[in-house]
C-alpha cells in the first residue's frame, strides 16, 4: 500500500510552489492513500519487456525557415503583466540580499 505523509505532501507543495494550510496538507495526505493505491495498478502489467510511449505520434524535430515574421509588440506582450517598468516585466526580488 502506497501512502504520502503530511510532511511528504508539504515537501511536494513546496516543490510545486503552492502554499498550503495545515488542513489542506492533512486532507491531501489522506486522499493520496486512496488515489495512489488506484493508480499503482499500472505496475501490474508494466513489465520490463514493454516499451514506454510518451506521445501518440512519432515525434521529430520540426524546423522552419529562419525568417523574421510579425510578432507581438512590446505593448501587447506586456498587456497582461501584473506589473511593468520601462517596457519590462517588473518581478519581485529573485536573488537574496547578500
Amino acid at each position, binding site marked *: 500500500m502506497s501512502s*504520502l505523509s503530511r510532511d*511528504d*505532501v508539504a515537501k*511536494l*507543495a513546496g*516543490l*510545486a*510552489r*503552492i*502554499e*498550503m494550510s495545515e488542513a*489542506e496538507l492533512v486532507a*491531501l495526505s489522506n*486522499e*493520496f492513500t*486512496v*488515489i495512489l493505491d*488506484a*493508480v*499503482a*495498478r*499500472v*505496475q*501490474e*502489467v*508494466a*513489465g520490463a519487456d*514493454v*516499451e*514506454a*510511449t*510518451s*506521445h*501518440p*505520434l512519432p*515525434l521529430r524535430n*520540426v524546423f*522552419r525557415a529562419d525568417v523574421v515574421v510579425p510578432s*507581438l509588440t512590446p505593448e*501587447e*506582450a506586456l*498587456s*497582461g*503583466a*501584473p*506589473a511593468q517598468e520601462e517596457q519590462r*516585466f517588473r*518581478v*519581485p*526580488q*529573485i536573488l537574496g540580499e547578500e
Partner: protein
Amino acid sequence: MIRLSAAEMAAKLSAGETTSVALTQAHLDRIASVDADVHAFLYVDIEGALAQAAAIDAKRAKGEKLSPLAGVPLALKDVMAQKGIPTTCGSKILEGWRPPYDSTVVSNLKKNDIVILGKTNMDEFAMGSSTENSAYGPTHNPWDLTRIPGGSGGGSSAALAAFEAPLAIGTDTGGSIRQPAAVTGTVGVKPTYGGVSRFGLVAFSSSLDQAGPCARTVLDAALLHEAIAGHDPKDSTSINAPVPQVVAAAKSGDVKGMKIGVVKELNGDGYQAGVRARFEESLELLAKTGAEIVEVSAPNFEYALAAYYLIAPSECSSNLARFDAMRYGLRVGDVDGASAESVMNLTREVGFGKEVKRRIILGTYALSSGYYDAYYGSAQKVRTLITQDFTNAFTKADVLVSPTCPTTAFKIGEKANDPLAMYLNDIATIPVNMAGIGGMSLPSGLADEDGLPVGFQIMSPVMKDERMYSVGAALEAALLSKWGAPLLDKAPIMGGAK
C-alpha cells in the same frame, strides 16, 4: 430559428431568408433569457459577435464567396485564447486576462466567418467531469438543472442543449468533449490527435489534449470539424496531411459492409441498465443498416484510467508551472521585500482550486526521482499496451463502439468530494486519448430509469476520422426515424422560446 441545425441556419443565410445579425441576435436573446439558469457562459461578447455578424452580412451582400458555415454563431470553450477577450480556463489565476493573440482554432473560425458569441464555462484548466471545478460556479444540465452537464466542457454542451448556440468548440484530454455530449444529448467529436492545432489552447496534458467540434447533429459537427482542422506550422505536433473527408462521410452515412467492433471490456458491470439498453438497441439499428457487428477484446483497457491519472497530472504539473505570477495573470503577496518564490507560493495557493492542486501535487510526486519508474514510467508502458490493443482490434473492425459513459448525468454535488468516483466517469473515453485516435459521442436515447440522455461512442483509427462520421450519421438517421423527432425535443422547454 434557434432550434434549427447549423446546416439549416447556413442554408437560410445563403438563401437570403435571414441575416447573420438576426441569427446572432436571436441567440444573444436566448442567452439573456436562459443563461441565468444554465450558466453555460462565462463571457458573452455581444458587441463583438454583432459586429462580426454585420461584417459577414456585408460580404454576402457584395456577393463574396463564403464558407459553408459563414454567419452561423458558435460558443467557444474558455480554454481557447481569443485576442482581446477574457480567457480564464475557469480559473481565478487567469481572471481578467485578455490574450494578445488568437489561437489557431479561433483564427480558423474567423477565417470561416463563424460568429463567436462568447466563452463557455469549464472545469478549471479542463480538469474534471462535471464543470463543478470551475472557479466561477457550476453549469447546469438543461435536461435537469439539478444535474451536471458533464465536464470539462459542460458550458459548451449545455449551450447546445439549451439552444444558446448551434455549434461549440470543446477540448478533450480524457473525454471532456464526449462525456458532456453524452449527458446532454448532443454530439461531440475528439478528432485524431494532431488533427486540430493546439496553438493557443491553454495546455493541460499536451500529449492528450485535442480540440474538436460540438454540435447537435453529426453533419454540423463534420462541417465545424473541417473548418477548424488542418496542418499548423505553429504546433509541432500538428499532422501535415489532408483533413479527413468528414463532411462527405456525414452526408452519405453509408456503412454497408463496414465492420463495427463492440469492445467487450467497455460494457457490463458498472454500466447503468438504461445505458446498456440504449447501447444494445443502437447496435441492432446499425446491424439493420448493413453493418456487421463483431466483438473485440482490449484486455489492457482496464488499466487506462490508472495510467491516465498518472500521465495527465504529470504533464499538468509541468504545464501549469507557467502560472507563476510573473508575466500575466494573478499576482498575490507582492509587498516590499517579498521574494519571487513567496509571491509564486501565495499566488498559486489563491489562484488554483482544489482539483488542480491535487493533480499538480500528484504529478509532482509521480515525476519525482525514486518514484518516476514506478508511476510515470509504468503508466507510459500501459499506454503502449493500450495502443497495441487498439491496433489489434482495428484489424478485426473498421470502427470500435461502446457506451460513452457508464451512467447518465449525476446530481451536482453528488461526487464532488470523491475524486475516484468522479474519475470513473471517463473509464470508456480515456483509452482513445491514450492512443491518439478519433472518438465521437452521439445521443442514443434516454435511459428508462431516469429519462436522461445516453451517449453512444464510436472510435476510429488515426486519421480515419471519416469512419466515425459515416457510422454516426447512419445511426443518427436510424434513431431519428425511430423517434420521429430529434432527442432534444424531449428536453424541458426553457425560457418559453421555441
